[in-house]
């Protein structure tokens, strides 16, 4: 039946610990068990003080993003057998590029701030009641936006992006793919409002097409492609005189500054 796998987990409580340390938990794992199931077993049977986020356990809520054996992944979508090392070990760390709160939990504040900055909602030309004008999206248009709509806000792209690692102000892949989702919606007329945060040294132009986001997205969203299409749209708006050239970076609080 089950075999023992050693879960090597980064533990850190900034209020108590001087620095992070590794804790190793032997966990009995069955075939097909996910990393999240192992973590729940640790919390229920071995050490109740271990902190991690999780909710739906089926890759929909996007809560349990963490660094598993060096790569950011969803713990509920990653089977232990797929990542366990030859020495029977699984190494777990919190997501990168976000401040540690406790153990595997990170402070998501900058991620959500940046998401809101791109005004991620439909801005119709003239708000009318649904009865006057049904907001129908043709099937072909929906298919083009469907993948970008699949985002579950798990922050894995944000954690894997090396630009987010060196530049705390960069909007990040998730905010940009969400901007893409609305900028390319034929019912939307929010280009003017989104131009400032997007066409900016900390916006779409900061993307260096490293493809880490696309490679790591658990929902398979072609994020880099969306960001590149966004860039071409912004160039078009600039060249056609629709928009002025913006140069001022949007101020973003760094994760360090958002600590309570």
């Amino acid at each position, binding site marked *: 039946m089950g075999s023992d796998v050693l879960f090597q987990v980064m533990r850190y409580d900034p209020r108590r610990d001087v620095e992070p340390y*590794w804790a190793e938990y032997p966990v009995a794992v069955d075939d097909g068990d996910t990393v999240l199931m192992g973590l729940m077993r640790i919390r229920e049977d*071995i*050490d109740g003080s271990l902190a991690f986020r999780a909710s739906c356990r089926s890759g929909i809520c996007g809560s349990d993003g963490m660094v598993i054996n060096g790569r950011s992944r969803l713990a509920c979508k990653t089977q232990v057998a797929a990542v366990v090392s030859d020495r029977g070990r699984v190494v777990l760390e919190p997501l990168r590029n976000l401040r*540690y709160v406790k153990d595997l939990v990170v402070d998501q504040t900058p991620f959500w701030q940046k998401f809101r900055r791109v005004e991620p909602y439909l801005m119709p030309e003239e708000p009318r009641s649904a009865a006057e004008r049904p907001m129908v999206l043709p099937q072909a248009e929906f298919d083009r936006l469907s993948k970008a709509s699949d985002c579950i806000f798990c922050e894995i792209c944000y954690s894997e992006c090396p630009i987010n690692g060196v530049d705390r102000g960069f909007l990040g892949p998730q905010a940009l793919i969400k901007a893409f989702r609305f900028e390319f919606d034929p019912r939307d007329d929010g280009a003017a409002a989104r131009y400032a945060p997007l066409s900016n040294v900390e916006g779409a132009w900061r993307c260096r*097409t*490293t493809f880490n986001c696309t490679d790591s997205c658990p929902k398979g969203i072609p994020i880099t492609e969306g960001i*590149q299409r966004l860039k071409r749209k912004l160039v078009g708006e600039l060249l056609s005189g629709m928009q002025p050239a913006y140069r001022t970076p949007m101020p973003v609080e760094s994760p360090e500054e958002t600590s309570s």
Partner: protein
Amino acid sequence: MDQGIKVRPATGLKRHPAQTLATYRTGTWAWMLHRVTGLLVLGYLYFHLIVLSSDVWMSGPADFNRVVGELTSPPFILADLALFVVVLYHALNGIRIMLFDLGYGIHRQREWFWGLMAVGALLMVAASAALLPLAHL
């Protein structure tokens, strides 16, 4: 707390979230090498302009010919080959980046990278065949 839990010090852990080499894949290496080769080419440009235009060591046609003669000596031929690697990488990956900017090949970014690197390797073989005889190795 006696179920086989072991605690050990923080080897390799930082007190703040950080990027590690584990995040590097094809696209990230391509970007990082593009940056490094770009800086090397920029550095070479300054070197090139200073060496060939400074009157500190050149005061006439004879001096110029002497300096150019030294620059075609075997060690500099080998340095030229190294420069060719750097320029070639930057140029070929630059093509890849421009294709992505124009919206082509973005779903085949790895294939484009390795394909262009193969082209670069062939061009390096040709450059070596042309330059190495001059180095009298």
